[in-house]
């Protein structure tokens, strides 16, 4: 018999894992590069603001208390509009998931509403809901509504039909089946849809604050943008981005709590 060889290893790979901290490193490197570039001059001051100046702007916003002047109205708009759009969206989505007639009637409508740019409707919203908070709530509600509907009825569709047949086979009432089987089963899909809906809500803050908002992160950004004040523009963008990461993290937390039953 010839000499024995060890079986060569050929598995592994194709399973990338996100390493904590590496992401932070990328941010730090990018920021340091921008700082170096803007200081050394190979990034013009019209191209990018100096990151340290953006940081100073943020600190100043914080210390002067103007951060809250802008953040509180924006968060209120996001909360009120988001809660309206998302709750109606979930209700409509569940109805589409449960009733043939609702589905037949509303799915094409939602599909047609989806690609409508919300900014285009701003003047109309002002007439319908007034120039104050009403139109801002409505815009954010409308913007979060359509994606919520789509993700919710997808989630209801994905509820394991054998579980529903099981409920029927034990003679559970229609209402019991919906409450105890369909809704909990759709919850994971609804929650992951919320991530997108809330991100869209944050994006729409800027559009909502285009008309007649003196305070708000969106208004702050718009003003900075129209003045080409890059430090403030970036400071505002950083705040929105942080808000987005924060809400996404909060939903992750809610998922961990509510969906403990998932493997």
């Amino acid at each position: 018999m010839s000499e024995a060889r060890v079986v060569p290893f050929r598995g592994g790979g194709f399973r990338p894992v996100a390493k904590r901290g590496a992401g932070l490193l990328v941010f730090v490197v990018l920021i340091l590069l921008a700082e170096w570039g803007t200081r050394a001059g190979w990034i013009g001051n019209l191209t990018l603001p100096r990151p340290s100046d953006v940081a100073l702007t943020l600190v100043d916003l914080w210390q002067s208390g103007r951060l809250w002047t802008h953040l509180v109205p924006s968060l209120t708009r996001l909360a009120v509009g988001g809660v309206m759009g998302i709750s109606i969206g979930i209700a409509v989505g569940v109805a589409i998931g449960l009733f043939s007639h609702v589905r037949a009637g509303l799915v094409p409508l939602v599909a047609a509403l989806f690609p409508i740019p919300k900014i285009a409707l701003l003047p109309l919203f002002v007439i319908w809901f007034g120039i104050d908070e009403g139109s801002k709530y409505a815009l954010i509600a409308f913007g979060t509504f359509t994606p919520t509907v789509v993700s919710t009825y997808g989630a209801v569709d994905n509820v394991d039909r054998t579980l529903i047949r099981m409920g029927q086979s034990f003679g559970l009432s229609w209402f019991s089946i919906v409450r105890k089987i369909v809704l909990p089963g759709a919850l994971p899909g609804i929650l992951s849809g919320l991530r997108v809906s809330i991100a869209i809500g944050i994006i729409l803050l800027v559009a909502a604050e285009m008309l007649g908002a003196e305070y708000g992160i969106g208004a702050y950004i718009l003003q900075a943008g129209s003045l080409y004040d890059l430090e403030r523009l970036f400071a505002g963008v950083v705040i929105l981005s942080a808000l987005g990461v924060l809400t996404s993290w909060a939903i992750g937390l809610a998922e961990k709590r509510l969906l403990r039953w998932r493997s």
Partner: protein
Amino acid sequence: ANTKLTVGALRFTSHAASFVAFERGYFADEGLDVEFKFFEAAQPMAVAIASGDADFGVTSITGGLISLAEKGAAKVIAGALMEEKGIDGQMILASNEAHAAGLTSPKALDGKSFAVTQAGSSFHYMGAKIAAAEGVNISYKPLQKVGAIIGALKSGQVDAWTIVPHIGKALVGAKAVSQIGMVADYLPDYQVTTVFTSANNAANERAKTEAFLRAFSKGAADFNAALVDKTLDAAGQEEMVKLIHKYVYEDQPYEKAAKSIINGAMRLNKDSALNMGSVQDQVDWFKSEGLVKDSITTEMLVDPSYVQMM
């Protein structure tokens, strides 16, 4: 109890009449309890009047205002700001790059880009009138906001623009842009801004509307005396500038702001009289461009019963 009123305004010197009337208590004297609502462009103000979010506004005649008037939602009732020969009015500006490349007078505008906030804005009207007078072709770049236009002009992204002097003089003074002409040379007696209100106010709230206009005219007279005709002494002028500084350039130090405010003073219409000729010309232009419906008339736009028509 006083009548509550919401007045829409831009943070421009041209809106000073309202600020003066408010600060000096002329509104209060008329039994009006005024609250300002600030906008960043003229067009949303027109929508706000239509939606009932504001009672009175002062702004230029835009396509949006005319459309809303056609729908029976808004009415022009008086004049506010007007071009007048001999008083520094709106300026025609060019970017430094374009200026260096030969755009030194409006004659050279052919093929150049001209900044406007939105299609159908007063900038669009002025640009078109200048182009027509010079027989040149220009392309309009809608940039939504005055601030955005300033940035684009400074960085040479657009070639030309027109603007009220309190902004224009500061820009030229800082050598950020170059001046190539005056609007008044093309549009003499141009009725730049007007006072407008909802159709309902104009038709059914006569007492309130008249009271507003009385106070407003008083404010305008004070402003003209202090900064246009300069019949007041230095102290009176300074007091007026300080008053306006509360609303305009509030984020700049007083010394800097004062210069811009004084530089930018244009005549406010005496007794809020309205130049119907100019209004007619503007409406005609909007119609000719297809920006508003052909069926519209100045009667739909203007309620002439409140002030004297020039």
